[in-house]
């Protein structure tokens, strides 16, 4: 390389680097640890749903820690109800979209989105805004309305739930990302990460008639666990859950919890709602079974206010 060219090239590189730095937020770049410094949980507050996820996942080392190149990813939001996003009965579509984008950035081959809805599934997918958001991000939106899509699995160690029919995508994908929304719930007090699994099975009625809380904890024993739980606490339904009646049921908490430990995630989320964890049986059962840790003090939690 000639000297002149070297100077020219390094000049260009310097300008480019400077431009890049001036666009990005400095502090964050230096704050983000280059190695995989893992927290047990990252909790964020004060940002938009997508911005909070950007920052939060960066704190965990990027989604690439969980999603490898060429893998198939299942993103499972809550799309249970035929309700608009502002009423917060379904996961925030902005968040779902951003997660899918991160999946592809990490090299995912394919990203799938589905839920076994409570209301009419076509309406739920449409009204929630999630179908559009997921498709915009390039994911495949898959129905969950027919028993044909479900396959029987065995849950060794299940107390009340020993068998279940789960959606084929749970079995056929490589990575499972659970994206619940935190809500008040009429019988289990709260619905969040653990209870979001009711949307991957066919026969929910069985759970309801065979000790609901035990079944929720039992399912968490199934080997195909979420690699990551991303709990949407941006708009939170604090009463009349899980469907909600009006806008007055919703409080804007502008928060997000990201954790691989769903028991810890649900515990933290319960505190956001101001609930005592002891009252939420499925969390305590899951903790006792060793499926996660509800003692948040024992965990390494990164808290960020934006």
């Amino acid at each position, binding site marked *: 390389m000639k000297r002149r060219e070297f100077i020219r090239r390094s000049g260009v590189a310097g300008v480019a680097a400077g431009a890049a730095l001036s666009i990005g937020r400095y502090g964050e770049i230096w704050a983000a640890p280059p190695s995989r410094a893992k927290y047990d949980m990252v909790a964020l507050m004060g940002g938009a749903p997508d911005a909070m996820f950007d920052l939060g996942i960066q704190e965990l080392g990027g989604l690439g820690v969980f999603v490898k190149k060429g893998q198939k990813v299942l993103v499972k939001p809550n799309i249970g109800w035929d309700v608009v996003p502002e009423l917060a009965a379904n996961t925030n579509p902005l968040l779902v979209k951003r997660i899918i984008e991160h999946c592809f950035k990490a090299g995912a081959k394919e990203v799938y989105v589905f839920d076994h809805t409570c209301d009419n599934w076509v309406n739920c997918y449409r009204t929630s805004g999630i179908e559009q958001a997921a498709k915009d991000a390039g994911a495949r939106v898959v129905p969950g309305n027919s028993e044909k899509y479900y396959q029987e699995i065995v849950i060794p160690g299940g107390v009340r739930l020993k068998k279940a029919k789960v959606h084929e995508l749970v079995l056929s994908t490589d990575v499972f990302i659970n994206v619940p929304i935190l809500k008040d719930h009429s019988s*289990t007090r709260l619905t969040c990460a653990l209870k979001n699994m009711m949307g991957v099975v066919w026969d929910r009625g069985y759970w309801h008639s065979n000790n609901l809380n035990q079944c929720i904890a039992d399912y968490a024993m199934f080997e195909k666990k979420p690699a990551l739980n991303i709990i949407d606490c941006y708009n939170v339904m604090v009463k009349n859950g899980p469907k909600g009646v009006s806008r007055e049921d919703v409080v804007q908490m502008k928060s997000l919890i990201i954790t691989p430990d769903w028991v810890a995630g649900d515990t933290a989320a319960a505190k956001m709602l101001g609930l005592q964890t002891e009252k939420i049986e499925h969390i305590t059962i899951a903790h006792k079974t060793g499926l996660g840790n509800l003692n948040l003090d024992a965990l390494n939690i990164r808290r960020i206010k934006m």
Partner: protein
Amino acid sequence: MRSPYLRRSRILISAIVFICFFVVFVDFTHLIPSKYINILLYLQFIPSLIKFYDLRTLAAAGFAAILILTLLTGRSYCSFLCPLGIGQDLNSRIGGRIRKKFRRYGYKKPFTIIRYTILAATLTVTIVWGIYLVTLLDPFSIFGRFMTFFAKPVVLLINNFLAGVLNRFDVYTLTHIPVTGYQLPAYSIPLFFLVLIFGLSLTKGRLYCNMICPVGTLLGLLSKVSILRIRINETKCSKCGLCSVRCKSSCIDFLKRHVDVSRCVNCFNCIDVCPDKAFSYGVVKIRKKEVKPDQERRKFIAGSLALLFGLPFISRAQEKNIPVPAKASTVKESRTCPVCPPGAGSLDDFNKLCTACSLCITACPNKVLQPALLQYGAKGMMQPVMDYNKSFCTYNCTVCTEICPTYALRPLALEAKKLTRIGKAIFIKDNCIVKTEKTACGACSEACPTKAVYMIPYEGNLLIPETNTEICIGCGHCEYACPTIPYKAIFVDGLPVHEAARKPEIREAETAVPEDFPF
């Protein structure tokens, strides 16, 4: 006019009409907006007539247009617009392909007594008693039931096969839709008519339309004075008989060179087939009429009178079958009244106006509308009834009220529908999981769109449902979600007269926005 385009345009128009109706009835993706369906429905004779009876506006005067059309052109309706008639033509064509014999019709005498008796019976029954015979015999409704009961499942099976193939290649544009079907007895009447009409049209052309269909007979009476009709030029005709052979209505007596206009459906096959070019379609020249007593008219009047006097007795006997509300009991759900769809207003109004065309049943995105067996009594057979064992009524949906051809279900704005109570939820504590199993459930409260079913503290940490019927609209989601068997712990009892529900009370949330992480 002798142009071959007459027949061709008949085939073209009827094909378009048939395909449109076929698509409307089998449309399982709910692609077609209600307003387009309503345009199609405007010119269906019986639905329009009933709608007009109810509304009395020009917006429902399609039947009058049909009457005028018939006075001008004869029974064009039967060939161009009636989906059941067009379907029969299609079937006759297939029959002709299978065996040549099926294609040869030949002149037959009219079944005068049968057809006028049926028309008279239909008229009198409808006036004196109710819509029962119209429900049974209205060609549009019969066609609707064929599509809903038999064609749609076939289309779904094809869709499911294709969806299965596509899903294997990771494509989810088509989705698997479970083919659920209805209770077996509900198939009896549609199946009977399917066999009857299929068989008749396969070998005998339009015999059903000219012997049984009351609309055909009524329009046939009018077409006797129509201005345009099929004529035979007697000087050209060589009496070869080809026209008779090809006439689906078997109404051309070639020996007498006479066309029975009351049975002619304007298919124009004769014009096309005549080697002598003796047939034409045009303004009829009024010939001197022999004055002789009209036998048919006499029979018609006599038949009508007999039925008029006879029927009140029959109808009185039937009245007993109308469900009468009784007192509710516990443990076993005691249903006092079926739940009829939103927009019906009341059970009585609904039963009077619905012809069981099944359009709402096939259009319902949630499949909660099912053909009734005896829930409404004998005269409401096949009319749609809400079946909360199968499904529930979607809170944000008004499809059935938008498309009802007869206005048996009147249009409801979404906000009005959300406040229309069609039934009331009744909680049976002794059946409830929370009481019997002492475990959490709350499936009913979870599903309730108005929180008319809510949870109150029970033993220990448990919560148990309680109902507030003031704000309940009877959508049935609670009953559908309730997991208890064989009897539900919560069910919806229908209301004979629909009511206005109170709006759910709205209170500000008491939970504060956390300033900092509470953990």
